[in-house]
C-alpha cells in the first residue's frame, strides 16, 4: 500500500506554507508553479523568503501580494520581455517597503540546491573570481583545495522549509514525471524539508511504472501531490499547452503602473476562488490558442523475464 498524498491546492498551501517560511519555487521558464504562487497570495502569507533562480512574473506577483520580505535569486527580470515593476520599486525605491535581496549566479543557486539536497556544508564552483557579487553577498566564500595551492569559491546549502514545483504528472504517492526541461526541480525538492508537487494530471500507477526512468522525483521525497491543470500559466507545460508570450510582454506594462497592477491582482488572483476559476475566466478560446499538437516519443522496451 503506497500512501495517498493527493490533496487540494488550498489544503497543500495551508498545511505546508507558514508565515515566515523559506519557500523555493522552481521551474526554469518551463513548468513555473504559478497557481501555487497565487494560492499563497490568496491565503495572505507574510514574511516569506522566496528562493527562485529566475525571479519572474510569479515573484513580482508575490511581491505585489505583500507576501515577501526576502528574495534569494540569480536573475530578476521578466524573461527577455521586459521588467518586473513591483520588484524594481521594492529594490530601487524601497517602495512600499524594502526587499532584502541575496543575489547569486545561476550556477551558484544550482550549487546551493545541490549542497542542500546532499546534506553538504558547502558546494564548490568555478564562478565568482573577480566578480563584485561576493562583495555584496558574504555567503559566497572560498575554500583552499587540499590537493594543490588552488582556491575555489563555495556557496552554502539552501534547505527551504518547503519546495513547490510543477510537473506534467505524478501518481498518488508522489512519483513525479517530467519531460522537456527538467531544470533543477529534483534538487530543489530533495533540498527541502517538505515538498509539494503540483501536476497537470494525476495518473494511474501503471502509467508511471511503464517508464521508471521518466520519474524525476521519487515518492519518498514528496509530501503532497496537487492536481491543478494549466497551473503553470503563463509558462508552459511541454506537451500540454504552450507559453503565453503575449502575457509576458503585457506584464511589463501591467506591473510598471502600480494602480493597474493592483487591479490585475484584484481581478485575477484575489478575484478568483482558485485556479480552476482563473482558468475558466481566461476562457476556452484563449486556451485553444495555446493548444499544442502531438509529437509522441517512441516507446522503449524495458523487457519482461520469460
Amino acid at each position: 500500500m503506497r500512501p495517498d498524498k493527493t490533496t487540494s491546492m488550498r489544503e497543500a498551501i495551508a498545511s505546508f506554507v507558514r508565515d515566515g517560511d523559506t519557500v523555493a519555487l522552481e521551474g526554469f521558464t518551463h513548468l513555473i508553479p504559478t497557481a501555487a504562487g497565487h494560492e499563497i497570495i490568496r491565503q495572505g502569507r507574510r514574511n516569506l523568503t522566496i528562493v527562485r533562480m529566475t525571479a519572474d512574473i510569479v515573484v513580482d506577483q508575490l511581491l505585489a501580494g505583500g507576501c515577501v520580505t526576502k528574495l534569494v535569486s540569480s536573475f530578476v527580470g521578466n524573461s527577455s520581455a521586459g521588467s518586473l515593476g513591483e520588484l524594481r520599486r521594492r529594490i530601487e525605491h524601497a517602495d512600499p517597503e524594502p526587499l532584502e535581496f541575496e543575489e547569486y549566479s545561476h550556477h551558484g543557486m544550482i550549487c546551493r540546491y545541490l549542497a542542500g539536497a546532499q546534506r553538504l556544508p558547502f558546494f564548490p564552483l568555478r564562478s565568482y573570481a573577480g566578480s563584485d557579487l561576493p562583495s555584496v553577498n558574504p555567503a559566497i566564500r572560498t575554500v583552499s583545495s587540499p590537493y594543490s595551492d588552488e582556491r575555489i569559491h563555495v556557496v552554502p546549502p539552501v534547505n527551504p522549509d518547503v519546495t513547490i514545483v510543477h510537473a506534467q504528472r505524478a501518481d498518488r504517492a508522489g512519483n513525479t514525471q517530467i519531460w522537456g526541461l527538467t531544470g533543477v526541480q529534483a534538487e530543489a525538492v530533495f533540498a527541502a524539508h517538505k515538498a509539494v508537487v503540483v501536476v497537470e494530471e494525476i495518473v494511474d500507477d501503471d502509467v508511471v511504472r511503464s517508464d521508471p526512468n521518466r520519474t524525476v522525483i521519487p515518492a519518498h521525497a514528496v509530501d503532497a501531490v496537487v492536481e491543478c491543470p494549466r497551473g503553470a500559466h503563463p509558462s508552459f507545460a511541454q506537451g500540454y499547452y504552450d507559453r503565453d508570450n503575449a502575457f509576458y510582454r503585457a506584464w511589463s506594462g501591467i506591473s510598471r503602473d502600480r494602480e493597474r497592477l493592483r487591479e490585475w491582482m484584484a481581478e485575477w488572483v484575489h478575484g478568483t476562488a482558485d485556479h480552476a476559476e482563473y482558468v475558466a475566466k481566461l476562457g476556452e478560446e484563449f486556451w485553444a490558442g495555446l493548444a499544442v499538437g502531438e509529437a509522441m516519443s517512441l516507446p522503449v522496451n524495458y523487457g519482461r523475464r520469460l
Partner: protein
Amino acid sequence: MITPSERLSVVASRELAGRRTVFAGIGLPTLAASLAHLTVAPELEIVYESGVCGAHPSHLPETIADAVLITGAEAVLSMPALFGYVLQGGHIDVGFLGAAQIDRWGNLNSSVIGDWHSPKVRLPGSGGAMEVMANAREVFVVMRRHDRRSFVDELDFCTSPGPDRALAEGIRPLGAGVTKVVTELGILARGGVGEPLRLVAVQPGVTVAQVREATGWALEVADDVTEIEPPTGAELRLLREDVDPDRVYLR
C-alpha cells in the same frame, strides 16, 4: 521444520515495524523487508543501491540490479542521485549491512582479513556500506553465522565505522550506526552513540552463555533478555507463498 533463513528473515522483518524506507541488499534483507511490507510496515519502500526505488518485481531478484527490479518500478535514479540525494540526503530509515567482522560498537569490516597491504583474504571492500552506515538513521545487520571469527574484539580493518569512531575524529554522522544484529543465536542491540551492543533476546533453546561463548568480546547482557517468539504460521505462509515461493533464498 523452520529453516535458519526463515527464522532470520522473520525476526528481522519484525524489527522494521513502522519504518518507511529501507536500503537493502539481496538475500535475507530483501526477504525481511518484503515480509515486513506485508505485515508490520505496510508503507515500506525498499531502495536498492543500484538506484531502484519502489520496485515491483515479477520474480525474486538475484542481484540488486536485476532487470526484474527495473521493469515496473516507480523510479530509477542515477547513482549520483541515489548516493547523494537519497542516501546522504538522509532519506533512509534503515540500512541493512553484512560484514566479515563486527565489533561491540557495531563497526564493520568488509575489506580484508589480515593487513590491508598484504591481506590473508582480500574481501570485496566497502561498496556503498560505508555510506549506508554514515547516512541511514540506523543499520541492521543480519549474520547467519554467530562465532568468534565474525564477532571480534578488534577488527582487522574498519571499513564502515559506527558513529563512535566518527565522533572520535570530530565528525558527527547522521545516524545511530548499527542498532540491531540478528543472528542464528539471538538479537544484539544498542541505542546509539556511546553504547555497546548488548544481548537483548535469544532464539528459542539458546542460552545466554552460548551467545557469550560465540562472541569474541565480553558481551554485555540486558537485564531482561527475552526469548524470541518463533515465526507464526501467518508469517511463514507469507514468506513461503508470497515472498519467495521458489525458495531462491529460503534454502
